[in-house]
């Protein structure tokens, strides 16, 4: 236990004094604040003289301004924080020849990985929490609405999901830092996986769907519809392999209780319009959490998977100083 705390403390010191972490954190905070203030100012215009809609405060985070919303931005670039915190966690010690010294001290080897992961998660939590707080403060002064209890809860849950999402990338980056000896390789590998899982899984999914269940262009409406639905379902399943999709789905349910942003693959048909009129009240918090839980569990599961591989590789690895 002492070992974990000692390494944790040192890692925290390292992170706080590391230039590249400060740069990426400053960049993310800056862009995040710019997006939110643009959205805030647009809302200020729109809401002038109109009754405030429910959950107006959450719209600060979910409405897309000129480019994309804050939530989308974090989904897109948040992983960079995790990758930058983790990609050289182990192989930096290896190339600095300090690893063999470290593992010959009376500490368990997993303590090294755990402490580095915990320090990274703490940094992520600090960045994300301060970001959400800054935007909230900005929002209060811009749109003049104080968040209600439920909105605060939803934001807190959003914060937890975001921290877990970025922590997954931290875990993946640490895994690469164990597997690859060179820091450059592990950085590039993390970036490649990030780009692959975030941008190309959707593309691959539609390829896969077209290959397995092509959309049939027939006169028979029922057949055409069912082939279309099947195609879309496969695409959907494939997209779940992307942590970004998991994150996007989870956060949109939490932060968008009115479900304004359509997530369905089919364009809004009469049935869906009907359901919207029937359920025009926001989804209660408890129900939102229930919907989000599977996404959260998936995120935790893939993070644990990374860790499992990390342990398996690192525990039995022979560590030479040369």
């Amino acid at each position, binding site marked *: 236990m*002492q*070992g974990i705390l*000692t*390494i944790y403390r*040192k890692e925290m010191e390292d992170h706080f*004094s590391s230039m590249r972490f400060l740069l990426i954190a400053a960049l993310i905070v800056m862009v995040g604040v710019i997006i939110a203030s643009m959205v805030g100012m647009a809302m200020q215009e729109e809401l002038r003289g109109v009754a405030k809609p429910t959950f107006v405060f959450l719209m600060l985070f979910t409405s897309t301004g000129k480019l994309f919303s804050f939530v989308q931005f974090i989904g897109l670039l948040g992983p960079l924080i995790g990758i930058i915190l983790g990609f050289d966690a182990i192989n930096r010690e290896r190339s*600095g*020849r*300090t690893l*063999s*010294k*470290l*593992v*010959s*001290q*009376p*500490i*368990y080897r997993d303590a090294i990985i755990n402490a580095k992961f915990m320090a990274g998660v703490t940094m992520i939590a600090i960045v994300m929490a301060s970001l959400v707080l800054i935007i909230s403060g900005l929002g209060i002064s811009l749109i003049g609405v104080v968040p209600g209890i439920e909105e605060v809860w939803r934001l807190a849950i959003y914060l937890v999901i975001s921290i877990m999402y970025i922590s997954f990338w931290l875990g993946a980056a640490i895994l690469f830092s164990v597997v690859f000896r060179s820091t450059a390789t592990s950085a590039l590998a993390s970036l490649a996986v990030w780009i692959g899982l975030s941008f190309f899984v959707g593309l691959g999914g539609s390829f896969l769907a077209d290959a397995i269940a092509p959309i049939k262009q027939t006169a028979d409406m029922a057949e055409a519809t069912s082939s279309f639905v099947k195609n879309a379902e496969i695409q959907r399943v494939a997209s779940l392999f992307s942590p970004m999709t998991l994150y996007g789905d989870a956060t949109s349910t939490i932060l968008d209780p009115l479900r304004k942003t359509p997530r369905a693959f089919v364009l809004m048909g009469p049935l869906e319009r009907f359901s919207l009129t029937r359920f025009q009240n926001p989804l209660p918090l408890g129900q939102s959490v229930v919907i989000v839980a599977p996404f959260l569990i998936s995120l935790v599961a893939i993070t644990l998977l990374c860790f499992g591989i990390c342990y398996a590789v690192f525990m*039995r690895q*022979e*560590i*030479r*100083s*040369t």
Partner: protein
Amino acid sequence: MEREIIIRMEELTKLYGQQKAVDGLSLTIAEGEVFGFLGPNGAGKTTTMLMLLGLTEPTSGTVRVCGFDPARDPLKVKEVIGYLPENVGFYEDMDARQNLRYIARLNDIPDRVSAVRIDRLLEEVDLAKEAEKKVGSYSKGMRQRLGIAEVLIKEPRVAFLDEPTIGLDPDGTNKMLELIKSLSRERRMTIFFSSHLLDQVQQISDRIGIMIKGKLVAAGPLAELAQRGLGLEEGESYTLEEIYMKYFKEA
């Protein structure tokens, strides 16, 4: 007086694929002994040390260090041993004191105890004047001495030193050898060190082991090796080099 056996290796073998890095090594080392492990590069000296430390698992054979099996009880072993890897690394942006304190904390030594020890050790390894400098600016000799200090901070029973004098200038080498000698004399510490430099091993070791291609071809006090290897009588002059070359050619 029979001294306590502190390291015991029996038929220790390590395979890397098909290649035998260490082949049937059996050796015991008594408490307080300085054991010089001699052999050309790639003879398996470092691999042997890693197995003694529990940093790699032997393919077969048994190891006991202070009565513990390093493969099954690595923490128990690591509590009582100190290891100086070849070309030891440090956290370059910390100074000597911070590096030492980090190691002390990892060994669960409270800061107020380690503060006293650190000051004393820095005196001992002649780094007191440079203690506030970042380790990144240290010369090779200073780094090696700081490495020794890191080994000593936990006050181990056995010190494993892998090529402690490699890359040092003659003055640095002498300082290092003096330091190692004083450790065994003043602290009665068991020292297991490896080197491929003959005269150094000769200067400070109680016993010498010669390892060639994974096999321990000879082990014992220098005089005994001379008698056995070269067939010399007592009192005749010899150098370790002669003995070493003899064994080397045989292997």
